[in-house]
């Protein structure tokens, strides 16, 4: 499966990818602390965007509740650490199955009972909201008053316990985002990838071509939710505090999916470009408004909203399909 990773990739695309990777790899050497935190956010969204894209962009199942899997991953790992001193990498071994099971639960209910389209999307929101209110009242994770990880001033980076400076998280997320990219490409080129695209395009026709659509949709949900939970674990150990109101909130779910939609649903570069553009845009707006001396809460979001409107109106398929034509990369992307 991996031997064909580079098949049909133009030299130009490889050079561009290489340059991007080298640039990102060297970035912490020159970036200020502030810029580094922005880059961490970008990589975080690029990674989750890739995971969400498996479900929506590949298999055509619109999830509007991905904050659920981030939250489950974050809370599982953080609670294990706080209560039992279990480190995040061991915690991950619990967090991934927990999120995967949650995904399987939603998928099973929806696909068995033929809940599709808009209804499926609303079911995903409902389960995430259910979890949000539920965690608000779960005393084991300190409910709505928030779960805090012990913090100290770190001089060295402990990769095993994920205690350290932002640059450590930067590299972890960079590796994760790069691996997610490669993994998604491999998936797209595999048998399962073809089946997903077929289901996305026309489920009934896919079934009549012999595809067990239930099974492959389940696989997409489980892979996507399990992948997303890893970002949750990193989130918990990076921010060191968790509030149900924040991690599970619908606006988190929306943030997650804006990037890949703006970048191009179903494309491999879409989530990355979307993350760069939206996070970059948001930070630029803050800086610009600050420079203009405008300090009104909400002003940034209003501009942000209008920018979103413009992008979606001008480029219905997202940025990447348009950009790849402009820079002469007519890859066989889907």
């Amino acid at each position, binding site marked *: 499966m991996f031997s*064909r990773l580079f098949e049909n990739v133009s030299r130009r695309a490889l050079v561009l990818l290489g340059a991007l990777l080298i640039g990102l790899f060297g970035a912490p050497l020159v970036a200020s602390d502030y810029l580094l935190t922005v880059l961490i956010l970008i990589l975080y969204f690029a990674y989750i965007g890739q995971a969400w894209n498996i479900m929506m962009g590949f298999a055509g199942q619109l999830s509007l509740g991905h904050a659920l899997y981030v939250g489950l991953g974050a809370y599982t790992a953080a609670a294990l650490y706080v209560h039992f001193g279990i480190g995040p990498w061991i915690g991950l071994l619990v967090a991934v199955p927990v999120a995967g099971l949650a995904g399987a639960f939603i998928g099973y209910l929806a696909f068995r009972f033929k809940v599709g389209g808009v209804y499926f999307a609303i079911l995903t929101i409902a389960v995430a909201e259910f979890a949000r209110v539920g965690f608000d009242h779960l005393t084991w994770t300190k409910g709505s008053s928030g779960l805090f990880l012990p913090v100290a001033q770190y001089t060295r980076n402990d990769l095993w316990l994920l205690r350290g400076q932002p640059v450590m998280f930067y590299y972890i997320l960079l590796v994760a985002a790069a691996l997610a990219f490669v993994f998604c490409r491999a998936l797209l*080129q*595999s*048998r399962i990838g*073809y*089946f997903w*695209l*077929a289901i996305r*395009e*026309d489920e*009934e*026709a*896919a*079934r*009549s*071509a*012999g*595809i*067990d*659509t239930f099974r492959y949709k389940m696989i997409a949900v489980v892979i996507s939710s399990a992948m997303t939970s890893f970002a949750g674990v990193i989130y918990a150990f990076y921010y060191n505090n968790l509030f149900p109101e924040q991690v599970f909130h619908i606006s988190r779910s929306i943030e997650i999916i804006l990037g890949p939609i703006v970048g191009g649903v179903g494309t491999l570069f879409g989530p990355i470009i979307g993350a760069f553009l939206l996070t970059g845009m948001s930070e630029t707006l803050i800086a610009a408004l600050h420079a203009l001396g405008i300090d009104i809460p909400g002003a940034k979001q209003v501009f942000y909203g209008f920018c979103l409107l413009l992008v979606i109106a001008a480029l219905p398929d997202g940025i990447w399909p348009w950009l790849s034509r402009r820079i002469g990369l007519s890859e*066989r992307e*889907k």
Partner: protein
Amino acid sequence: MSALLKVEGISKRFRGLLAVDRLSFDVPEGGIFAVIGPNGAGKTTLFNMIAGVYLPDNGTISFAGERIDGLSSDRICQRGIGRTFQIVRPFPALSVEDNVIVGALMRRHDVLEARAHAHEVLRRLDLYDKRAQRASSLTLPDRKRLEVARSLATDPKLLLLDEVMAGLRPTETDRIVSILKELNRDGLTILLIEHVMRAVMALAGRTLVLHHGASIAEGAPADVVRDPAVIDSYLGAEDI
């Protein structure tokens, strides 16, 4: 020749309407069997019951000696029955090649092997040169052949064709007819549901005429079209 597909006494009722009424027939292995009838005769309902979209209310459907009624459409495809849709449904955003690869992957786990098989099928259906195009950009006759190609790529023993000639010009019809004949010579059994009598006359070894969900005549096409009951049922509705 033994029966590859055996339909015994199947019925289907939608609310008040009896769409298919205790219908029985056999499709012999290696043959081309046509089901004809005026609009609303229950042809597509029959087709959908064989393909696993609807469950018959009564009766049984057997394929290669095993019951298949009640199986889901993906299982039926896996058993060896390929189908096309009356209103064509290729995967629009995928290339012609990828459309066929999806079908080929049903019995193949390796993508390269599936691609090779897809190329073979595309050549047979005169679509090889268009393999890189998006399916949505094809003309109607090309899309119809793409449907046949996708379904053939699953290596079916029996191919169900739902009005695959409808809307085609005579030259295009002749082209599909010759392709189907060739596939049949290589051992494929075909069940046609068709309006276009020209194609039925040219292809089918045996024809069943459906009217109000029931069989009113069955036999060689040339005999069937002279049957008074058939002429009666078609009279005024359409020209044969």
